């Protein structure tokens, strides 16, 4: 009886102390962590959209938030949104920038990826990402992913990374899929208003 009482007391004390320390520490670090996240987000948006002065957030659904880039004259220069999907490994998250009429991409940025280092993770390289600037989306986008050579029409094709065809295709696939979803949601939202 005595030992079990002691057990309860000791564990309670330790757990309470631990909780106290953690809540204190969280208070110090939480704002900083939030700031870091925001910084990353801002940087990603600025990378994928053409020059803008500030952006607005528009929540399209639980998961998707549209970042609308605007100039000082309230002119919309493009939309940016996060696109999630699976690459060669799971959990590939992109930031996709697109013209307000959803006709062509304005740029992409890789937010999170666990692709193979040295192969698939080269999707982060500027050289690969810049191919997506100006890529035509249209209603039924038809983007060719070719190996070992430049695509014939740079607005309709992507050169796959050598040794990482699957990762390259995955990026294209995620973009096509997510753009369609976002476009539908956006149109619904606009029509609804």
């Amino acid at each position, binding site marked *: 009886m005595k030992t079990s009482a002691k057990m309860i007391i000791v564990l309670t004390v330790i757990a309470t102390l631990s909780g106290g320390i953690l809540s204190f520490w969280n208070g110090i670090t939480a704002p900083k962590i939030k700031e870091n996240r925001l910084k990353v987000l801002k940087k990603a948006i600025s990378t994928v959209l053409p020059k803008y002065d500030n952006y607005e957030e528009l929540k399209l659904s639980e998961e998707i938030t549209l970042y609308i880039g605007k100039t000082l004259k309230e002119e919309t220069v493009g939309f940016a949104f996060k696109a999630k999907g699976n690459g060669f490994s799971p959990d590939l998250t992109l930031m996709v920038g697109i013209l307000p009429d959803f006709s062509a991409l304005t740029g992409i940025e890789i937010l999170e990826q666990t692709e193979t280092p040295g192969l698939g993770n080269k999707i982060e390289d500027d050289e690969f990402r810049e191919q997506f600037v100006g890529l035509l989306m249209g209603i039924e986008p038809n983007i060719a992913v070719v190996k070992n050579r430049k695509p014939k029409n740079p607005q309709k094709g992507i050169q796959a990374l050598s040794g990482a065809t*699957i990762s390259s295709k995955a990026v294209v696939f995620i973009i096509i899929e997510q753009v369609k979803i976002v476009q539908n949601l956006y149109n619904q939202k606009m029509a609804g208003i």
Partner: protein
Amino acid sequence: MEEKVIKNDVKVKPKKNPKDKLFKLDRQPLIISSSPHLNTTDSVPKIMWTVIIALLPAVVLSIYYFGLPALWMMSTCVISAGLAECLMNKLKGEEFTIPDGSAVITGLLLAMTLPPSFTLTSAIIGTVFAIVIGKHIFGGLGFNIFNPALLGRAFLQACFPVAITTWTFPKTDVYLSKIVDGVTAATPLGLFKFEGETSDLFNMFWGNIGGSLGETSAISIIIGGGFLLIKKYADWRIPVSYLGTVFLFGAIMWWINPKYPDPTFHLLSGGLMLGAFFMATDMVTSPITPKGAWIFGIGAGILLVVIRLFGGLPEGVMYSILLMNAVTPLINRYTRPKFFGEGSK
């Protein structure tokens, strides 16, 4: 000390130890040995060097198709394999084992699996890995679980995945003029997997295609492999079951869905021929029981087709054999032949 006592306890009478001679007055002493007093003329070096001879047609043809770079590649691998072998012998304080020929085979086979444009320094890394890690760390000849050449190749594949899948066309290639930059080409398997193009079976048979040094020409491998089978230095069951399974399984898949390549294409493409005749039949890493050999070949065949058709890689010979290597001890264990008279009456 304990160890030594045990050793002496069960020591076999040395076959020919001069110290065991017992002297009889009028003539040289007779030698005592335990029966049998006869031996075949086969020996490990003889087997190994025969394998090397069997590889020569493929070597000659690859030099014909790819020119001097092929020769440099093969000599680099063979020499570095030899040096690595010497180094390990020295470190382990054992006799030099170059004459048994196993290191040369490893070097040569590894070179055969590399694309002709592969850099020589990288090839050396692979060869050293094959000999040091693939063979000697496991205990040297006879103790390695995996085929050292394939292990070396697997290491290179993991290290330099791009370089090792960049092929040049044979210099005599009829399509050469169509290639814009003339540097890279795809293997028939790669073309099929990623572009959906088939290649000419005739060219594949003679080796007039892109690919690694030893995997292009089916005919040269068949000649050398056939020689090995006739000499009985390779278990015929393994190539037969391996190629047979690939053909059958490939045919079934082709029949189910004609978008898959036809079985002949499977047989002639990639390193299958080289793998079936020279790698899968590696004595050290393949089962010793006849039934085991069938299982080994069939397993490798199924793995190969699965990797080729459903995997991320265009080619699956290397992994199919390595995976079967890994289960070889298990196969040996469960395929023990029935003893003579076991279960009768």
